[in-house]
């Protein structure tokens, strides 16, 4: 009989996961606060809810771009928690609000970050080059985030409230908006560029959206994708 050539299972790299999460969190705080400061300087008085939505969106996208693999669901959870904490810190610095508001935002940002992490891992299996997964995930989230803009004409043509609702729900911004309470589709820029502002629609249910995003993210993280980092 031949020698057993199977490799022993890898031990969880706890130190590495924690280190990675800390780096991600610190990077997100810095990037988000810097961007928020630029926004505040250029936009003038900014609504609190609008500020929160902007900060959380930046935090989520920054979390996607911060280097480092997504090694699995548990490590992904830790990283998502770090990015979420970082985003909330930045949101609180930019626009303080009662704690209850941040509990909701934590759920929204946490869910989106989980999903983004899973998406990044899946995209890494398909996108070429080191960091390709991050770039691909960033682009996919950007396309989804702007769905109410580029799908607006289709929504108007369809003439269906259900279609409007689905298009709105396809955007990660809508899920963050549901938690921050900011009606972003009636904000100046979106109202100018998206016909959805003229139509009847409903934002997705905050809790349901968070659940769907979290589960999807965990599933994507759990799948043993073959990535360049393996």
């Amino acid at each position: 009989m031949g020698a057993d050539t199977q490799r022993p299972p890898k031990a969880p790299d706890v130190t590495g996961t924690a280190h990675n999460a800390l780096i991600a969190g610190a990077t997100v705080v810095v990037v988000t606060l810097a961007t928020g400061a630029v926004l505040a300087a250029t936009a003038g008085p900014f609504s609190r809810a609008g500020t929160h939505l902007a900060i959380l969106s930046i935090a989520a996208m920054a979390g996607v771009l911060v280097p480092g693999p997504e090694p699995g669901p548990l490590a992904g959870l830790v990283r998502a928690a770090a990015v979420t904490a970082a985003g909330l810190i930045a949101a609180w610095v930019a626009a303080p609000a009662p704690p209850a508001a941040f509990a909701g935002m934590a759920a929204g940002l946490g869910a989106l970050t989980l999903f983004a992490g899973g998406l990044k891992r899946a995209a890494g299996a398909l996108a070429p080059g080191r960091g390709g997964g991050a770039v691909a995930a960033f682009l996919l989230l950007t396309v989804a985030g702007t769905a109410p803009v580029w799908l607006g004409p289709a929504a108007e043509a369809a003439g269906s409230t259900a279609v409007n609702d689905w298009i709105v729900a396809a955007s990660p911004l809508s899920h963050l908006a549901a938690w921050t309470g900011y009606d972003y589709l009636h904000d100046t820029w979106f109202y100018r560029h998206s016909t959805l502002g003229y139509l009847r629609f409903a934002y997705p249910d905050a809790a349901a959206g968070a659940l769907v995003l979290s589960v999807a993210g965990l599933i994507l993280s759990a799948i043993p994708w073959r990535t360049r980092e393996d």
Partner: protein
Amino acid sequence: MKTLMKFLAVVLVAGLWPGAAAAQTTMDPELRDQGRQAADQGLRFLRSSQLDNGAWSYSVGITALALRAFLESHNGYTENDGPFITKPVQFLLANVRDNGAIAESGQNLNYNTATAIVALQATGNAEYAPVIAGAQAFLTGLQIDEGEDYTPDHQFYGGIGYGGDERPDLANIYLTLEALRYSAHDPDDPVWEKAMAFVSRTQNNSETNDQAWAGNDGGFTYLPGESPHAGTRSYGAMTSAGLISLIFVGADREDPRIEAAWDWIGDNYTLDEHPGIAGRHALFYYYTVFAKAMYAMNEDTITDSDGRDHNWRDELVTKLMDLQGEDGSWVNPYSDRWWEDNKDLITARAVIALNLATR
């Protein structure tokens, strides 16, 4: 003096409301009867489309408008007339939120609350006074001012938006002001003066608008420096909304802002399309706010840019009758934007306009 002016504004605007004495008009009496019949047909349609819980289209705003259409009808409907009135009232009351807003969801809180106030006030039932007071407080709390770190020189100062933290606009603040006037809100509340500042900043009238973008055609834009249809173009619905908003906040007839707006309406008078907007979008929204503005000005006739006089009552009634469907309903046949494909909403708007035109 300020209080007197505001009191006079209330008296003037009170003419909009049911129970007030009908103004003397030059309207064709036969056309008035036909207009009232068309309105009755619209109300019959609304009876047929009413949901079991008394609401229309599962919407507080649409329900409130439909209810208002009934309560302001020449038939003088009241809660004593039956469930088709009492049930929508209960639907509105069932959607009162902890913060005083009246809405079935977290969206469009200002629009829904403002239209609900008008409908509840129109019942004349003093039992609803606490709800109305709470709703008034919610609306005034939406106003953008020092509380949100805005200074009086900011273009958004005094404005009111959709009900959250979003930018304000004239369409929303006009509804708020209407609701507050209709429900006899405190005439000394600073909300009026602040609103005056914002409304003035949406007018293309450089004499009274301190914004650099302001032109001089006297019409109004959607929000300071912006219209959703093109740049800073004035258009029909907002000009009527701006005019009536000025009346609500206490400007008198000789105010240059009102005169400029009146001139714009005359110079751009048409009921075949929405003046200032291509595509006939928001046509019925225009008809309704146009009727409110014309009624508030207490003028039956307006002169267009060619010097022709138009009896707006006769012409609006004729136009609405032309657009009415066989089932008594209305929709905008040209555009679905701003929910104008919704029969309940547009029929309610058309009936409200007919009620004013035939009063």
